């Protein structure tokens, strides 16, 4: 199966996602330049982290107009698994594939450190291999990860089980002290209504090898492989 890693100008975790998919998981992986209109027959699409277009104007605001986003949207609408990591999550928000917005971290500082997140939902293609309640140690690296949405949207996300990851302490409790950026309801990651599009601020691709301090992020990639394998080529993007 094949991962497509979309490269926007200013993406800088593209190589890391590619490395995780290709060299750690041993799957096929391909970079897709943002000016392309085809996803090259990929089974899973990753929008990587970085500072697309310098994050000038607003994070992800310009990237959503890239030609490739039309294909990504079609792929997502057809049920294809899409993972937005950090800036990729921000792009998904701007593109309307996920609801809500990002504010600056509440202390107005960039944070790079390992945090804990609790898996809240296992019924997405990126968490199917993780038990609900499992605590993952994942790095964050962002200045704008303070998830915000209107009360109705938050209510909807909560009631429909679309909050996929929550910042938590070592016991799995979503405390304020464990919330690194002030995100509402400790939200670290969410999915769309169809559950095939997942966005999260932490970087699972940076936590796929023990030598880097944590291999907890592997479960997202492994889940995607299982999900695609189970569905056969059902959602393969058109070449």
């Amino acid at each position, binding site marked *: 199966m094949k991962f497509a890693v979309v490269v926007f100008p*200013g993406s*800088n975790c593209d190589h890391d996602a590619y490395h995780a998919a290709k060299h750690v998981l041993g799957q096929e992986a391909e970079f897709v330049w943002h000016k392309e209109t085809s996803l090259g027959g990929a089974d899973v699409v990753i929008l990587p982290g970085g500072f697309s277009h310098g994050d000038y104007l607003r994070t992800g605001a310009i990237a959503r107009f890239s030609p490739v986003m039309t294909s990504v949207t079609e792929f997502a609408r057809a049920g294809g698994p899409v993972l937005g990591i950090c800036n990729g999550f921000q792009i998904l928000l701007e593109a309307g594939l996920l609801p809500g917005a990002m504010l600056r971290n509440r202390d107005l500082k*960039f944070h790079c450190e390992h945090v804990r997140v609790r898996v809240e939902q296992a019924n997405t293609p990126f968490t199917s291999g993780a038990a609900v309640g499992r605590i993952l140690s994942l790095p964050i690296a962002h200045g704008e990860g303070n998830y915000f949405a209107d009360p109705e949207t938050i209510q909807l996300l909560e009631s429909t089980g679309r909050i996929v990851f929550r910042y938590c302490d070592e016991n799995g409790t979503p405390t304020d002290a464990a919330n690194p950026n002030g995100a509402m309801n400790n939200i670290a990651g969410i999915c769309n209504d169809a559950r095939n599009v997942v966005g999260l601020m932490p970087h699972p691709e*940076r936590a796929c090898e023990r030598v880097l301090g944590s291999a907890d992020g592997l479960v997202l990639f492994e889940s995607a492989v299982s999900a695609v394998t189970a569905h056969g080529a059902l959602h393969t993007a058109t070449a």
Partner: protein
Amino acid sequence: MSAIDTALLERHGLTRDEYDRIVAALHREPTLTELGIFSVVWSEHCSYKSSRIHLRKLPTTGARVLQGPGENAGAVDIGDGLAAVFKIESHNHPSFIEPYQGAATGVGGIIRDIFTMGARPIALMNSLRFGALDGRDGARTRRIVEGVVAGIAGYGNSIGIPTVGGEITFDDSYAANPLVNVFCLGIARADALVKGSAAGSGNPVYYVGAKTGRDGIHGATMASAEFDEKSSEKRPAVQVGDPFMEKLLLEACLELMRTDALIGVQDMGAAGLTCSTSEMGSRGGSGIEIDVSRVPQRETGMTAYEIMLSESQERMLLVVKKGREAEVEAIFEKWDLHAANIGDVMTDGILRVKDKGAVVAEIPNSALVDAAPVYDRPTARPAYLDRVATIDPAALGSGAPPDHTFAALLSSPTIASKRWVYRQYDHMVRTNTLVLAGMGAGVVRVKGTDRALAMSTDGSGRYTYLNPRRGAMLALAEAARNVACAGALPIGATNCLNFGNPERPEIMWQFVEAVEGLAEACRALDIPITGGNVSLYNETDGQAIYPTPIIGVVGVIDDASTTLSRTFKQRDDEIVVLGENLGELGGSEYLRTMHGLVQGQPPALDLAKERALISCLVRAAGERLLQSAHDCSDGGLAVTLAECAFDTGGIGLDIDVKGVGSLQQTLFGESASRAVVSIRPEHFGRVLTLAAELGVAAVKVGRTGGSRIRIAVDGVRTIDSSVEEAERVWTSALGRYFAGRAA
């Protein structure tokens, strides 16, 4: 050109004598544009006119050296057909005037130096010096710290190169002249290093990147003068960084370098278009002719003078093969960059600048480069040295109780955890970081090989102030030792020499002593200098900073899985001190923090012992005999031991050491050539044997265990603190000085 009078020369930072030299070299008076070009090329910052004759004393060759000083960065062979390309540079003056942009553009500049060599940058570090956070200028210093850290973070995070380490010292010597030294390391194929030279008559010269504006005009001249109360008026001479533009340039240039269409490339750093055109022509033994009207401009009505002297950021000058223009332009178009053909390579060895076809400057390389002034400035041993040479024993008294001193040192900003800082730096992007920031030397793996590279930047202004020669030697020794503590063999170094006004004989004496000391240490430790930077005129209102040589050392770990960090790994491991404690308090953090004194001689340095210690650490790490290793430096043995226990989840230690002089000397003395290692009991004997073979003193002082830091001297318990409490003090000290949530 009778308009060239003394006032005009002064504005250009040129002396009358230098002007006469220009006239002699040109055989005529220069035009205003030519005068501007000479002024920046001959500035201290670009020409090294005061330091050049002394820098020649540094050893710059070795079996692994692929590129020594003279190009955009140095390079060493790391095996597997790869080269580590690295350099350190200062951005001191701009960072004082405009901390965020000054620091950000410093990062941008050093990154360009690395990818210009054909290397993909994979790690950044920085050495920072600020005034005391609670000193006389504390409020201003805190603002500068916040700006500098945010600027480094803003640029490095955005471009996606991890800031894997660094170090920070706070001392009022730097209150009005902070130091921002930035280091970058990249990886290139050893046989594909790119040079910054122009060759091949008729080959087109391209300009690519940001448009040229009026920002930064005379930046190099500013960096070659002292500060005074009018310095804030120089704000327009500080440039504004655009990391997104640089990211595009980086990717596009690396893509271009994978073709064979490129002849040479040079970034436009200090003195922009002027230095890049003259240096590329000079290195290639050719001339360059450009027309400034073809240079992309951000503002209207810019003169040739302004275009040649602008220091707008994120710009590159390239020479490509004639006939390959379309291919080159297509690569830049892909990245939404416009490559402008602004001229051609010529055979005549002349830098010729035209404006809409009319010649406005015509300078032979020989006049600009060969005729450049080189000064052997007078030196005089400073009188203060005698005043500070010895520690006044009466000033010390009997000293505070050791546990009190221990806590005070842990919360001293220089020693305290820098988590508040490095948490703002993305230190993990590119998924190579094997030792996370704050856990020891910076270590990144080299994907596609078994190897990793370790790097450390160090330097003590206080030591160098007290003894310039030894201070510089200690800086190299500490950086090399830090790298060895990660398990890496040191193979190359880069230096950033930060000093005051070289026109003062006392400053020049410090500089010469330091360079000679550094040269001696490099030879003894077999670590060549592959490049670097000199920053002079670090003075404000006539007050010079401590002379501060910052040395960056790069080491190679053949098997990345043998990498070590500073932290204990488990309870019941043996703790061994390698090296000898001589009980030296001169220049120590203890004297400064507890007594407000900067006195005495810095620790003695026996280079043979240092080399043996480094060998011992590298071999023991390679044989997987060690669990952790940590260099013993600021704060002495007590602080070093505590740091081994921090970030471990509370693994304690129980230690009994032999006293050397007073309790303070034993616990807080900063004797060089020492490291604290922890060892599984089964490997303990082998480590002692290895140390004995290499002539390294090795003393077992205790074991890891429990959750307290217990340190006895000659059987008497002197420090007893829970790891948790000590760690809380150490971790929270720095953040408390700044607004917002503490670390």
